[in-house]
């Protein structure tokens, strides 16, 4: 998708050269008296904005020299504008860094032609995973994922934010499972999707973890809804594991086995897994500009790692971070790669699928 330019090559070379150096103890950069800009390519008030605003004061506390950390919102183009701009313009001096989300990774993985950034060139210093749970109204008489076969021949309705939005993840999940689902587009946020389900207009839905706990669990307790599966988290090899927030709910791959009696495989499943990892298990990475010197990258990594041990942060993290293991230090690299790469055949398959079924033009 992005042609290999001199710049990409140089960045690749720089990454290779710095790999052994990174192992050595680096001189930390001192940011005393400076103001660091945390670029968020979304408007104020969104999920990513809340996440950054929650973390910023802690990060400031753990950065050498206690610089102030401010949030700079650069909204527009579904986060592509701000990320393009950062990639092209930010200076590699450690004074600015960016936090993107699953909604930024999806167009990147799909090969959207408006995307002008390459994740591989931006050194990651932190990755914040999240999760979500897919559920069904109780009226279908399906008690859990094993009984999904009962729905054969029935059409379900999903209230979606769009074929190329983060809702491509449930779309691919339903496709891989073999469920017949009609996607009704144009929702502005998962909240509207849930409302549509509560009104009886939609008949299958998912919510991210915090909204699920707060809004759907009461429905489950009242016997009106049944959880099917979570998106799960992934280990360093990319193998799905149960979501720590929902240890009793199977993850998607388990649900597939419960429904079909065998492990999932094939390009449709690969495509699902790549997007689910990008959208949930490895979403919201924090990155520095391309070609940032290794000592600055290490300073940031250390600050984020130290931040995650802050007792005050740990006591208050539930609202903004949930139960998820935040990736710091050596855990960053593998998770970041998993969340920002996709096999070429899986990408091609998804693009074809979207073009054939939903008129998406790439």
């Amino acid at each position, binding site marked *: 998708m992005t042609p290999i330019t001199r710049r990409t090559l140089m960045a690749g070379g720089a990454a290779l050269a710095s790999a052994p150096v990174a192992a050595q103890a680096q001189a930390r950069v001192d940011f005393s008296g400076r103001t660091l*800009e945390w670029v968020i390519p979304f408007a*104020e*008030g*969104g999920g990513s*904005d*809340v996440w950054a*605003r*929650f973390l910023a*004061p802690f990060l400031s506390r753990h950065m050498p020299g206690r610089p102030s950390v*401010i*949030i*700079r*919102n*650069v*909204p*527009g*183009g*579904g986060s*592509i*504008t701000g990320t*393009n701009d950062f990639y092209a313009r930010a*200076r590699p001096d450690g004074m600015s860094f960016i936090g993107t989300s699953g909604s930024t990774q999806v167009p990147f993985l799909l090969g959207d032609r*408006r995307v002008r950034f390459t994740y591989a060139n931006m050194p990651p210093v932190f990755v914040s995973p999240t999760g979500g749970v897919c559920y069904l109204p109780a009226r279908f008489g399906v008690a859990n994922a094993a009984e999904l076969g009962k729905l054969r021949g029935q059409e379900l*309705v999903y*209230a979606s934010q*769009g*074929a*190329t*939005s983060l809702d491509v993840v449930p779309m691919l999940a339903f496709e891989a499972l073999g469920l017949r689902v*009609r996607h*009704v*587009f*144009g929702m502005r*946020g998962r*909240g*509207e999707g*849930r*409302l*549509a389900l*509560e*009104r009886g*207009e*939609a008949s299958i839905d998912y919510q991210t973890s*915090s*909204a699920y*706990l*707060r*809004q759907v669990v*009461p429905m489950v307790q009242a016997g009106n809804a049944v959880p099917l599966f979570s998106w799960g988290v992934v280990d360093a090899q990319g193998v799905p594991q149960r979501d720590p927030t929902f240890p009793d709910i199977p993850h998607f791959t388990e649900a597939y086995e419960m429904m079909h009696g065998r492990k999932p495989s094939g390009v449709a499943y690969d495509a699902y897994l790549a997007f689910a990892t990008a959208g949930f298990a490895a979403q919201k990475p924090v990155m520095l500009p391309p070609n940032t010197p290794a000592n600055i990258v290490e300073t940031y990594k250390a600050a984020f790692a130290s931040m995650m041990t802050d007792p005050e942060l740990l006591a*208050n993290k*539930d*609202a*903004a971070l949930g139960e998820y293991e935040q990736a710091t230090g050596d855990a960053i690299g593998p998770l970041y790669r998993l969340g920002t790469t996709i096999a070429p055949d899986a990408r091609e398959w998804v693009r074809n699928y979207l073009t054939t079924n*939903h*008129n*998406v*033009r790439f």
Partner: protein
Amino acid sequence: MLDLLLSTLLDLLTLKHMTFMMVGVTVGLVIGVLPGLGGIAGLSLLLPFIYGMDQTSALAMLIGLVAVVPTADTFSSILMGIPGSSASQATVLDGFPLARQGEAARALAAAFFASMLGGMFGAVVLTAAVLAARPIILAFGSAELFMLTLFGLSTVAALSGGNLAKGVAAACLGLAFGMIGAAPATGEYRMDFDTLYLSDGLPLVIVGLGIFALPEMFDLLRGGGAIAQKGQSLGRGWFRGVRDVMRNPGLVLRCSGIGALIGAIPGIGGSVVDWIAYSHAMQTSKDRSQYGKGEIRGVIAPESANNAVQGGALLPTLLFGIPGSGSMAIFLAGMILLGLQPGPSMAERDLNITYTIIWSLAIANLLGTALCIGLAPGIAKLTLVRYTLIAPFMVMVLCFAAFQATRSYYDLLALLAVGVLGVFMRRFGWSRPAFLIGFVLSLGAERYLYQAVQFTGWDILTRPLVLVILALTLLSLWAGLRKSGGTAAINTEGAADGSRAARMWPQLAFAAVVLGLFVFTFAEGMKNSYLAMLFPVAVACVGGACALWVLFRQSRGAVAAGSANFDTEAEAKDRGPWPFLGWFLGFVAVTGVIGFFAALVLFFLAFLRVVARCPWWQVLVLTAAACSFLLVLASSLNLLFPGGVLQAHVDLPWPLR
């Protein structure tokens, strides 16, 4: 429940909590007074500070701000003719003419008092409804929401100005502008010229400012004097304003009800409520001849509605975690930062938090009204100042507000483009309110129709609530179209007398341009797949037919054209708004070269010296004042100003960066 209400009130009434509320109210007042900046900018300003605050203090501060913005934004709507925020656009129609007639005090008093009553009404609704609102909100499915957008569009009939065909065409033009960006049904990009900027659609704040504020500003500059043409009676009229409100209790109650209800239904949004309330006031008046010229009921209606919206909008925010408006989205973010998650428990376990919010809303409305009334005599004096001194400040604030949308240079270009359209629409009597209503409801209408048909099929038309709203829509159409006291319709674009031109070609040219825009919409619409094509093509056909009809009438000659002949420049002797448009264009162009801040300094120096003919000391003092104000605001919002060619090549320190 009663003791909970009482205990939350007592908890709120401590010195600490009230101090924080005053902080919120004060910031809200300042932000609200500045045109174009509303709750979104204000809450973003406060958000960084709530970290580590206790919940009651923080909620009191945030709600204090939210509650006072729709009261304070009335200042610029009435005094300057510039919508203070998207919630008080309709107030301009009658509030500003009142100010020009020297009745600013009366209009402001009526507006503030109506705002307070509306805000209180909203708080009461919230108290009662929070326990039972879930089923009501769930009763509004996509079909009902679609019907509500139709209901909103039906107000065009009342607001179409002197010529219905022009009004409908203007509304269609607004609908077409609203369709720029991703189609709700398929995600296809329409009319975006392959730019990232337009792929999100035109921002509402820019359309509102461009269509109303810029043309008004140019017009005031041409006049050369102050805003108030008869400025002597400024200090009086306060009690008269309050009495005006007291004399219309039914109107205040109905409009507050409309505001609270529309606010409570997620998906319609507060920016159309003021228009619905305004047209409601008009439809229910026996004598409609004064609307658009300074009818006090036209001020009372939108102002009582837009404060009631806040109470209503808190319902879906608190119960479902679905923000009803942009500022509610940021309020929600604030709640999450405080460790509060909205949900059904806000009506059960966490009822104390809900009641804290309600009390904050009520008390902040009182405080805000008191402050506004206290400040009003001072601020109202602005209408006596020579407008050439005010204009550069207005340009600064308008541009600042405009680039809040996406923080880019394109925001200024979009403002300029919409502003030019607004100048012509104003001149030739194409209703700008109709345009704005079309714009606001465009995506909603398309989205909800598509979703309703997809979800339930065409038998949506048999749902009882749909039929009720349909009946209301027909009623509103009838009320808007019926003749009253001999006059066919109100003049939302100024007096029709003296606007009959003998030279027809300027009008014909503009009508042809409008027709051309519809042809373009049609052609662009046809490029899409069926679902994304339907709406633009339908709108282009209706709008195009109306534009053709207008062209046909106008081409038959000045007299035969009848109400289609409208040109406020017909008897103008000066050079028109062009010199001032040229100044603005120059400012935007220079910004593109050397960046916003440097361009602004140059603009101030040049404009104050050349146009306002100020002595140098005054030029310097005013420029310095403007710059320091802008810098304080921008640094507290962590803003970078839009850069130009210079910034792309050279690294400069803030604020020039």
